[in-house]
């Protein structure tokens, strides 16, 4: 029985050699095409443009203007909480949606943001602090979703604020963490004294340093 089968198979191969070759060829082509499958989410903005865009201002929104917008028209802006659902359930900005960072690129979330972009509805992202929302925000920008802003200071800052008219007196300085808090004049004063002190202290400071190099074993090449 077995012998009959192998005989049969050999005969089959011999007569259909060309057909089998073509079949193999097609399989290889299909395999290559499948491995090239384009990821579902792709960048729409190239890195050079992103870094140029970052130089512009207006990517952030102060808690005050968010509060103003929400009190005028609660549905005028979509508020998105990117913290975990645990933290969200413990407290969040009123009417905020919860899209945890980990789920940001799921189809559901991406189509949600794309629809916001299409209908040009403004949206704002917030995390615990500003830094947490900053990364996801920049990622969305790179995916071509540009109507999203970041809440300055994040939720931790927002919930401590007594959101009232008194806030109107606060300046941009208090919201924008990227403004410098270093008093250069104070530092320069110190720096000048350094020049004087340096000559006398130079010898004292340069105590010999013990340097212990750590060598990692280098894997030797194998011979024959």
């Amino acid at each position, binding site marked *: 029985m077995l012998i009959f089968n192998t005989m049969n198979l050999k005969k089959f191969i011999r007569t259909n050699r*060309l057909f089998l070759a*073509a079949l193999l*060829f097609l399989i290889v*082509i299909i395999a290559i*095409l499948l491995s*090239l499958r*384009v*990821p579902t*989410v*792709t*960048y729409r903005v*190239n*890195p*050079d443009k*992103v*870094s*140029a865009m*970052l*130089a512009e201002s207006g990517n952030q929104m102060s808690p005050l203007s968010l509060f103003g917008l929400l009190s005028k028209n609660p549905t005028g802006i979509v508020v998105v909480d990117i913290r975990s659902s645990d933290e969200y359930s413990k407290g969040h900005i009123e009417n905020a949606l919860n899209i945890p*960072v*980990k789920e*940001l*690129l799921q189809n559901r979330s991406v189509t949600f943001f794309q629809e916001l972009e299409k209908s040009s509805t403004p949206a704002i992202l917030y995390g615990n602090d*500003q*830094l947490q929302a*900053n*990364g*996801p925000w*920049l*990622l969305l920008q*790179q*995916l071509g979703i540009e109507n999203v802003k970041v809440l300055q200071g994040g939720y931790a800052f927002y919930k401590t604020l007594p959101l009232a008219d008194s806030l109107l007196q606060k300046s941009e300085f208090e919201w924008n*963490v*990227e*403004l*410098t*808090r*270093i008093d*250069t004049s104070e*530092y320069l004063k*110190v*720096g000048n*004294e*350094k*020049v004087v*002190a*340096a000559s006398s202290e130079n010898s004292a*400071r340069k*105590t010999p*340093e013990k*340097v*212990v*190099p*750590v*060598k*990692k074993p*280098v894997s*030797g*090449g194998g011979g*024959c």
Partner: protein
Amino acid sequence: MDRRYTLLAILLIVAAFGLLILPDRDKPNEINPQELLTAIDDHARFLSTDLITERIIGSDPALQLIDVRSADQFRQFALPGAVNIPLDSLLSSQWRETLMQQGKDKVFYSNADIEADQAWQICRRSSFKRIFVMKGGLNYWYTSIMKCSPPKATAPSQEIDLYNFRLAARQYFTGGESAGAAKDDSSKGAASKVAEQVKVIKKEPKAASGGGC
């Protein structure tokens, strides 16, 4: 000639044209958005100001600070050894070599950590290796080290050690007696402690030499 061979040849030519219309992979060294999101969610990229300070004082050869603020701000004040690469010129060819340096930890900083983190993300997307962000930025560095305040007497010893380290660091950056900290005996002790610290220089493993015949 055999008709079947002609058919196969035609098939091959058609497949070759198929290769032409395959989607572009113009930036093969870019990581895809999903990988980038995972990296964003990972907080290993943040280094504390105290750690950076320690490495500056120890003049760690593997540390490359990168200041992403404007050139103006950089001129006014910057950390020692930092290179100024403003955000909008981050990917210009001029800085490529600095950012690609092997065996160096590239640490971005700005006044806070927002802009530094943006710089990090752009570089991460272009798959640069060994890039970090200084958590808190210069503002936090300044308030925690140049303006450090003493802990309570009842504070745990770790906190007191940290305070002593910061006092010593302040002395290092200001050049000594000026800040009024030097009168404190403990700070002097800590200063010498920093100087005496044994430095460990990690060497990059050399490329394994391949054996062959």
